[in-house]
């Protein structure tokens, strides 16, 4: 662990169920055993127990990333940020999906002003696949009266490269949501702090190559490109 990680660990130590007498020793052992904060926060309960952390302490460590995720979701709902570029949404999805060790499919619902008003998990799978339930996506988009839908899923493996299934899924979801009047604007693949917008690059997509991905949601750009959703 580096100095910054060790400083955060030191702040957490009083809450990990370690007696005051052993705290210094356990803190040192943790900093040697785990190479970074992420590794500590995602460590198995067994390895935390081995390092001297109580069951309650392990729960606290495992809670930090999900609690941060929930808090960020709440912040987006409260602030309703305008997501008028792929870059803004890509960053939001990265912050939201990056630590998950299983594949999750998440949708962002936008209003007519491109304000993000809901961020929802649609499905989660094992470490390597997340079934996309079209019916559930359609239900959410219609129930929430979304003007636009943007979806994202994470690749816990760390590579943004899309599989053929990812591309097929993107087209199927786009066809379905477009026909319901709640168009799918983009489908991102997120891996760590990187994201790949799929729709903009698909040869079969009517918008492929027509506009700059970073101004994808910008109305004037869409008007210039003559695109209607």
């Amino acid at each position: 662990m580096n100095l910054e990680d060790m400083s955060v660990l030191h702040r957490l130590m009083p809450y990990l169920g370690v007696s005051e007498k052993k705290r210094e020793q356990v803190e040192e052992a943790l900093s040697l055993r785990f190479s970074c904060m992420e590794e500590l926060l995602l460590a198995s309960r067994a390895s935390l127990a081995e390092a001297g952390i109580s069951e309650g302490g392990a729960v606290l460590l495992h809670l930090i990333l999900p609690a941060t995720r929930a808090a960020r979701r709440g912040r987006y709902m409260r602030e309703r940020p305008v997501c008028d570029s792929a870059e803004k949404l890509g960053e939001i999805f990265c912050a939201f999906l990056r630590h998950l060790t299983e594949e999750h499919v998440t949708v962002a619902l936008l209003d007519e002003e491109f304000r993000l008003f809901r961020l929802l998990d649609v499905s989660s799978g094992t470490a390597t696949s997340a079934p996309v339930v079209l019916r559930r996506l359609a239900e959410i988009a219609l129930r929430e009266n979304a003007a636009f839908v943007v979806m994202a899923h994470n690749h816990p493996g760390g590579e943004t490269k899309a599989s053929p299934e990812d591309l097929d899924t993107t087209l199927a979801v786009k066809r379905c949501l477009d026909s319901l009047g709640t168009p799918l604007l983009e489908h991102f693949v997120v891996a760590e702090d990187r994201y790949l917008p799929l729709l903009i690059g698909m040869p079969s997509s009517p918008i492929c190559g027509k506009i700059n991905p970073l101004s994808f949601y910008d109305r004037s750009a869409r008007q210039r490109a003559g695109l209607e959703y």
Partner: protein
Amino acid sequence: MAEETAFRQGHRQRVRARFIAEGVDRWEDYRIVELLLFSAIPRRDVKDIAHRMVARFGDLDGILSASPEELCSVEGVGVGVAELLCAVYPAALAAERVSSRPRLFHAKRLSAYLTDRLERTGSYRPVLLMFNNRYELLGEKELPANSITAAGITVRCMVEELLSVGATAAVIGIPTRREVLVPSSEELAVCRELAELFELLDVSLSDCVLVRRDRSLFLSAVDERFSRLAQKKRGLEYES
């Protein structure tokens, strides 16, 4: 009094068990705050405090972004609680920095790692590389025999290692001196069996690699049956 304490302990156990089973994605904010408070307030009912904090700061983000002084202005919140809540975002941000563990998701990188290892250690014993699902190397275990097909190789010791580090993927490196880099039928049979067994435990045996000092060979490239087993899940990247 003793009954009340036992009830509270039972409640805490139930909430923690619920968190372990289902996560917090569908939880209301006050429940998440309550679970955080368990670590800072050992023997008191904390639900009311959690509700008061949500009422005061609006939501979980408001609570985790508040200053210690603001937090302490809520009835029932002391310095200990404030310090814990103020440490949550910094811990998450520290975790968001890029990991320092080697990531070997690409076949070329993995091959280079194994040949370097052979060069460095000079050991010709098979090695089990254990990964999380970001293909970060969690650890490696040298197997106690000179060949993957030897009697000393026990599946049990491999599984124990994989589970103890929480691995979701594995690769077996098989160092060799043979001139023609071709796996034996026994090696292929063992690797297929291991892939099937690991799959049952939700660990993906992504590949087995014959390693010589100058080059390596991925068994998935030469054995279709093993390749099918190894490639069931999205695994290593093989393209240049």
